[in-house]
């Protein structure tokens, strides 16, 4: 179990940065949702509970050796698929999507945990192979990713589903996938794009993309959020409008400000200074995570770290880009800051694994 020695090898700096981002998130949720003139909101309290539960999950994921987790990864993976299937048939429907399992008033979103499952199983799979992955390896890895991806996309939750792809890409890349393969994959994606556009996307998804290319074509409809996001961020200026003094978020020009657009609120209220601080923290967390991958004693550790980090990074970069109105609006939360229990717990559990790999770099 957790030896005293290991305790000293915990990456406290990373943990601190993570907690700082969580704190920032809670503050922004408080700022956007608790307005005395509206219904009393306790979302920031809920978020704090989620952080506490997430920290407990983190303790769990760093207590046992990551290799133990990897050895059991097939169970984790199968359990995860079972949960996703369960959601598919018995999940709770909210806002037109069947994504949640209801547990005594607490809604669990299994798709968030699927990221950890996929990261574990891919790390284990590629970690057992040596050398450059063969075509067959890539195919098997791909299938392992596509299965949960398809189930999640079916909910529908395309945003979360897509975050599984970077896990596969990241792990395969680190495992030594040939650059040629990468090129082929890129070409395939390009060719698949029109097909996906035609058959794979729902109308609202198509609308989001086409308005992204020209937001003004529908300034009050689908382009509205994007324009509002830009206004929100741009009006923040250098120093921001001050805590709880943002007009865009406070007056709800920005939809789901405490969730998808929390970074916009930060940009509005804390300005460019706040943005730099948050970007710095995220960058630090990511680079520190890559450092853990580099320090890892074995390839399994590196792959696992990168798997977890890949979806995290993808989500962070995409959400921040979107919150500045520079990417199509997508229901993709900002890990560590956005409101959402499952995401918070899953993310902290994931970082538990990263800390795990780093602190056990000297153990056998």
């Amino acid at each position, binding site marked *: 179990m957790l030896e005293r020695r290991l305790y000293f090898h915990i990456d406290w700096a990373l943990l601190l940065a993570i907690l700082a981002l969580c704190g920032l998130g809670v503050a922004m949720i408080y700022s956007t949702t608790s307005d005395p*003139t509206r219904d009393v909101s306790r979302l920031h309290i809920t978020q704090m509970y989620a952080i506490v539960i997430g920290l407990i999950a983190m303790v769990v994921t760093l207590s046992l050796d990551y290799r133990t987790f990897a050895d059991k990864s097939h169970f984790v993976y199968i359990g995860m698929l079972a949960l996703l299937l369960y959601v598919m048939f018995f999940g709770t429907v909210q806002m037109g999507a069947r994504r949640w399992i209801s547990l005594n008033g607490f809604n669990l979103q299994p798709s968030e945990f699927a990221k950890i499952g996929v990261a574990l199983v891919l790390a284990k799979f590629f970690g057992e192979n*040596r*050398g*450059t992955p063969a075509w067959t390896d890539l195919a098997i890895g791909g299938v392992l990713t596509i299965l949960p991806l398809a189930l999640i996309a079916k909910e529908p939750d395309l945003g979360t589903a897509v975050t599984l792809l970077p896990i596969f890409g*990241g792990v395969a*890349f*680190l495992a*030594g996938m040939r650059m040629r393969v990468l090129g082929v994959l890129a070409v395939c994606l390009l060719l698949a794009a029109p097909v996906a556009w035609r058959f794979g996307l729902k109308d609202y998804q198509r609308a989001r993309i086409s308005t992204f290319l020209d937001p003004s074509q529908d300034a*009050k*409809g689908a382009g509205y959020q994007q324009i*509002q996001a*830009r*206004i*929100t*961020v*741009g*009006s*923040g*200026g*250098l120093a921001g409008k001050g805590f709880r003094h943002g*007009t*865009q978020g406070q*007056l*709800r*020009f920005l939809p789901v400000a405490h969730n998808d657009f929390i970074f916009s609120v930060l*940009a509005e209220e804390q*300005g*460019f200074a706040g*943005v*730099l601080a948050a*970007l710095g923290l*995220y*960058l630090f967390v*990511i*680079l520190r995570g*890559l450092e853990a*991958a*580099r320090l890892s004693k074995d*390839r399994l550790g*590196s792959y696992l770290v*990168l798997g977890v980090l890949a979806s995290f*990074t993808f989500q962070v*970069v995409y959400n*921040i*880009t979107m919150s*500045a*109105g*520079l990417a199509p609006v997508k229901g993709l939360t900002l890990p560590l800051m956005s409101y959402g229990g499952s995401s918070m717990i899953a993310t902290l559990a994931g970082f538990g694994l990263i800390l795990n790999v780093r602190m056990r770099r000297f153990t056998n």
Partner: protein
Amino acid sequence: MAVGEDRRTVAIRLSVLQVLIALLFSVLAVSFWVLQVAQHETYAELAENNNQRTLALRAPRGVVFDRNGTVLVENRNSYSISIDREHTKDLNQTIQLLAPLLGFEERAVRDIVDRHRREPTYRPITIVQDATLQQVAAVTSRRLELPDVVIDQIPTRQYHDTMAAHLFGYVGEVNDAQIAGTEKLKSGDILKSGDVIGQAGIEKVYNNLLMGEDGAKIVVVNSVGREIRTLEEDRASEGQRLKLTIDEDVQKALENGFKWSGFNGAAVILDPRNGEVLAFTSVPAYDPNAFASGIEKSAWAALNTDELKPLQDRAIQGRYSPGSTFKMAVATAALEEGIITPDFKVFCPGAATFFGRPFQCWKAGGHGYIDLRHAIEQSCNVYFYTVGNMVGIDRIHKWATLLGLGEKSGIDLPNEVQGLVPSPEWKKARTGEKWYAGETISVSIGQGQVSVTPVSMAVYISTIANGGTRVTPHFLKAVDDGSGWKDAPAPPPQSTVEFKPETIKAIHDGLFLVVNGAGTGGGSRIAGRDVSGKTGTAQVISTEGGRAAKGKTNKDLRDNGWFVFFAPRDNPQIAGVVFVEHSGHGGTWAAPITKHVLETFFAKQDGKPLPPPPGKQTPPPAPSEGDDPPLVLPGRVADNTPVAPQPRP
């Protein structure tokens, strides 16, 4: 592959990733810098426009009171419903939703919108001006779906139906010509589109006083247009309050008199000592309330095409032949010029010949020997033909003018027209012909080309009443700019001549006899009040003969009746004119209407209960005897239409 090589691959690829991530974050940082620092001002402004709206706060116009402090014109709150296109997502959808809420056809709403489509989008399109409470409630209940529909509370003018309509005038939105004109407001502001200003009457003349200063309110609204809080409020300041010289009770009595008669006409009643107008009417009137929140096109067209011309203010814009009421001007001229004394007598055989032409008196057998007082009392034409001929047209013109005839009265109402007392100079300029002495004869009894406005007649009789001061009729008694009432100075008289006491005495005696003696003004007699006055009956057929051919009913061709009066005979406190169109003899309706007005005036003065409005059950007393028969002029008349001899009914 060796483990070492694997590790190296991992190390290299991790480095690649590190660099990539660092680059990505740099790009993000630069993007945010561009948005937040480089383009900050653009977005800051957009954000402000997003959540701030400036609402106009309309200032109520000043309240108008009568001389005793009774409210005559006030304001009520009305609601206007408009579409603010700046906040419209889908105009079609808004129209579709809004139309049924207002109870309108979609087509109708679309038409209104189309009419204003080219205007700048920041100017809301008003769909309903004076919305009903149901409409307001219906729209309010759906405001979440209609963030672009604005309900404004607007103070709107409220008048007592048609009372004194021409006096108050009406308000309306300023037009482009008025904006372009030099009209500047008291506050120094320039009129702007959408401002409501006085367009007629007192509302127009005293617009600068009555108009308040609009305020503005900057509010924060949320994404569905709900007002969250007020950032800044610049309160609207109400216009100044005016106290008019009008006495509401006298005004009502006057209007009730006209209603009782059923005729059209005009009346102006003054305080002859200072020119304060106590009552003022022109019938038929319009309802100024119809203009208060924007008059509909059809209503406006109807008012304009109405043959009775309700928009015309007959009191200051109607020109009529004065008939026998003109005789005092000739008498004044003759006495003041020393041509006759009050005892000067003329023999009236019923007709007389001047310059080879016969001129008739209305009384077939004639009045016999008659002096000035009785010539006024009896309205003897031959007496005034003779005296007029002696005085001559120049001096008649001079004294008629000093009495206020043929001149503008200077009343504080817009668009007053001038009457006409002919003179040789005028004729020369007008037609190039010289004056024929024969024309003086018809002028002497107020026929021929003499034409007067009722208001100038009111000045005329006031000047006779007060002994020579041509007061300027006016309505403004006091102004309250918020710091208490301040008396408005009365405008100076237009001219002042001190008449000789015997002139005043003789004419006043004659006028007294008209009412209290054997004259034709008995219909206005009030015991103990010494009402003095003169009836006049002016034929219409000669001047409007052309219209006879167009199938007018007899009623339209009946004579116009006049009654000029003052009371009491000594130190008159009230004077004026009642002019009743096509009512026949001046004693038939004009004098009884006057009687009701005077009874009301004196009852109020004595603190006694006011007389009830005259009812239909009391038929007007017929004049005791004929007066002022329509004069059949030989030859031609003023407007060169052939004279059709008209039998008296």
